[in-house]
């Protein structure tokens, strides 16, 4: 069944008078149970795609459509897209001093539950669950008392994103270069987390620069994004080919 449908997506970035076209007719279709890897050179528009799908301010959709579970994403506020089940693991997770990780996660889980007409979890059980999840991605549960990402190392920030993925169990997970800057141990922890998350009822869009992540998370499809469009699609072997030949032969 189709989860994400992106058709002929055009998007610009920047203020009204100096808009710059980044996405120029992008198509992608993700079904439940699938993992799609998106690769491409620096500046090709990978993060832009993630930002446009999740509704980050500053981007304008100028043409095309994007739906998640048949709902038109363009019509929704960012928090409504999240409530619908769209999750973005940030390339650069932001620090929020003064708001503890635990408080942040509770607010998130409560907001999502309320929007979906579900009951909010019991606080004690919730805290226990979060502690276990933190430990499962090698995060010291002490981190949970600190401000969101405050003073976290790059690797800790990325593992925190994966912890949130496991906690929130979204329908669609978009991971924007979660593997960048990680050593091999951290990479394995991240990959293990994603593998634990994925199942027949959700989908993963894996934005990455390096094929090494794909040794641990096996994609069903690999797409190459260049100059705002998908220029080539294939299976896992495409990633190996790219590793070998680079992107130049495609652009």
């Amino acid at each position: 069944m189709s989860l994400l449908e992106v058709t002929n997506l055009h998007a610009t970035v920047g203020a009204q008078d100096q808009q710059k076209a980044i996405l120029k007719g992008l198509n992608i279709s993700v079904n439940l149970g699938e993992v799609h890897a998106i690769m491409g050179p620096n500046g090709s528009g990978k993060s832009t795609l993630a930002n446009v799908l999740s509704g980050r301010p500053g981007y304008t959709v100028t043409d095309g459509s994007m739906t998640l579970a048949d709902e038109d994403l363009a019509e929704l506020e960012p928090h409504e897209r999240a409530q619908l089940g769209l999750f973005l693991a940030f390339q650069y997770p932001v620090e929020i001093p003064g708001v503890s990780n635990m408080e942040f996660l509770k607010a998130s889980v409560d907001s999502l539950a309320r929007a979906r007409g579900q009951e909010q979890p019991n606080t004690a059980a919730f805290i226990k669950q979060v502690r276990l999840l933190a430990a499962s991605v090698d995060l010291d549960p002490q981190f949970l008392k600190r401000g969101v990402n405050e003073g976290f190392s790059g690797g800790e920030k990325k593992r925190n994103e994966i912890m949130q993925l496991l906690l929130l169990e979204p329908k669609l997970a978009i991971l924007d270069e979660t593997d960048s800057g990680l050593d091999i141990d951290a990479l394995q922890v991240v990959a293990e987390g994603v593998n634990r998350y994925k199942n027949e009822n959700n989908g993963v869009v894996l934005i990455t620069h390096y094929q090494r992540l794909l040794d641990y998370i096996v994609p069903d499809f690999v797409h190459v994004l260049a100059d705002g469009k998908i220029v080539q699609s294939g299976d896992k072997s495409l990633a190996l080919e790219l590793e070998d030949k680079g992107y130049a032969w495609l652009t």
Partner: protein
Amino acid sequence: MSQTSVDDLVEARSEYSAGFVTDIESDTLAPGLDEDTVRFISARKDEPQWLTDWRLKAFAHWKTMPEPKWAHVHYPPIKFQDISYYSAPKSQADGPQSLDEVDPELLRTYEKLGIPLHEQAVLAGVVNANVPPVPSMGSNVAVDVVFDSVSIATTFKEKLAEAGVIFCPISEAVHSHPELIQKYLGSVIPQKDNFYAALNSAVFSDGSFVYIPKGVRCPMELSTYFRINERNTGQFERTLIIADAGSHVSYLEGCTAPMRDENQLHAAVVELIALEDAEIKYSTVQNWYPGDENGKGGIYNFVTKRGLCGGARSKISWTQVETGSAITWKYPSVVLRGDDSVGEFYSVALTNNYQQADTGTKMIHMGKNTKSTIVSKGISAGFSENCYRGLVRISPTAENARNFTQCDSLLIGGQCGAHTFPYIENKNNSAIIEHEASTSKVSDDQLFACQQRGIDSEKAVGMIVNGFCKEVFRELPMEFAVEAGKLLEVSLEGAVG
């Protein structure tokens, strides 16, 4: 406080929740201010001659004083002759026999304030109303409602009386405890202290009086709800709290006010006196009508608050959460005269739309080994101006004085202003004075990060702002801490996209 349900927030946000106007019969003095006005007020309260003279002396000073202009606030000139200086709810001489006889408007006001029925009876002065065994406002809170200018009723008097605590309208204390009033009124804030204090001294209406006897720990928190009710009626509250040697008291002041168009002047005076080893904790949640989103209307809140740590090892702690008023001009201060005495000031001041706040504190160190702590959190949103102004003065006599000041500003949006004016006057080389300051902004990236996890932007701002204020909220009594967190979120309505 982040646990507050969103439903509550949505409801609270739907309108300025305390913005109701009650239409109660009241006798109000015609606008205008001269010696006769002062005499009238004094006569209405049946005051002794010395107090009438005291007021007249204050009035004579006031006439010679210029309006202060140094604060970082702007407003059209106040027409002091257009203000009515006295108003009292009618017919309370012989109180109602049951709630049925109480003005239903008054009861509705209580309801909006969330006061339960049995307590309403007590508050409304119903004859023979039963005082509930377990107070319901918080676990242990006594309330003295100042409804407009006259305190209508006082609860839990008996329990307090058992402990020897006096908690009553100051107009009553003038008669029941004249020696305390005569000794302490104006002892911390003299009549000519400043323009607004002089005005208050001349025309003060009513307020609370508290006396905690030697060695007594007040058995409950004392609380006053202030309300401005009459159109064009200035509020000139006067509060006096005396903690005798070795005693302890925690006092809560909360304000709500009706929605209206005209600007209203509020010039209160609060004096605190802590004798040897005594401790006073004074907490305020200030929620006067701030004006509409275009800066129309709202209260002018020009307040003088000062405490005297008169005895050795005494302690005075001010905690304030200021979210209301069109203009706030307020510097709760501590004079540290006793050796080893301690002064504290914890403040959250939030301004949105066109609100202006110029607030801070003064810590005047005179005794040896005196210590003061200042933690100020200013939050500006909309087109507002938020200013911290603080003075730390170390007198030559203050050996080994210490001060720590932390002054943080948080900006929401790009149109508002935050300013910091810390003044230090050090006349003693042994003093240690530390000052930390920071300015930060709620960034779009932070808001988006919250939204991406399902948290809407208003809730997100509330969460970030509450986090920013944590150190101050920690100092508030429990029931106030919850209310304060909620207030900030309500007050920031419309501050983000």
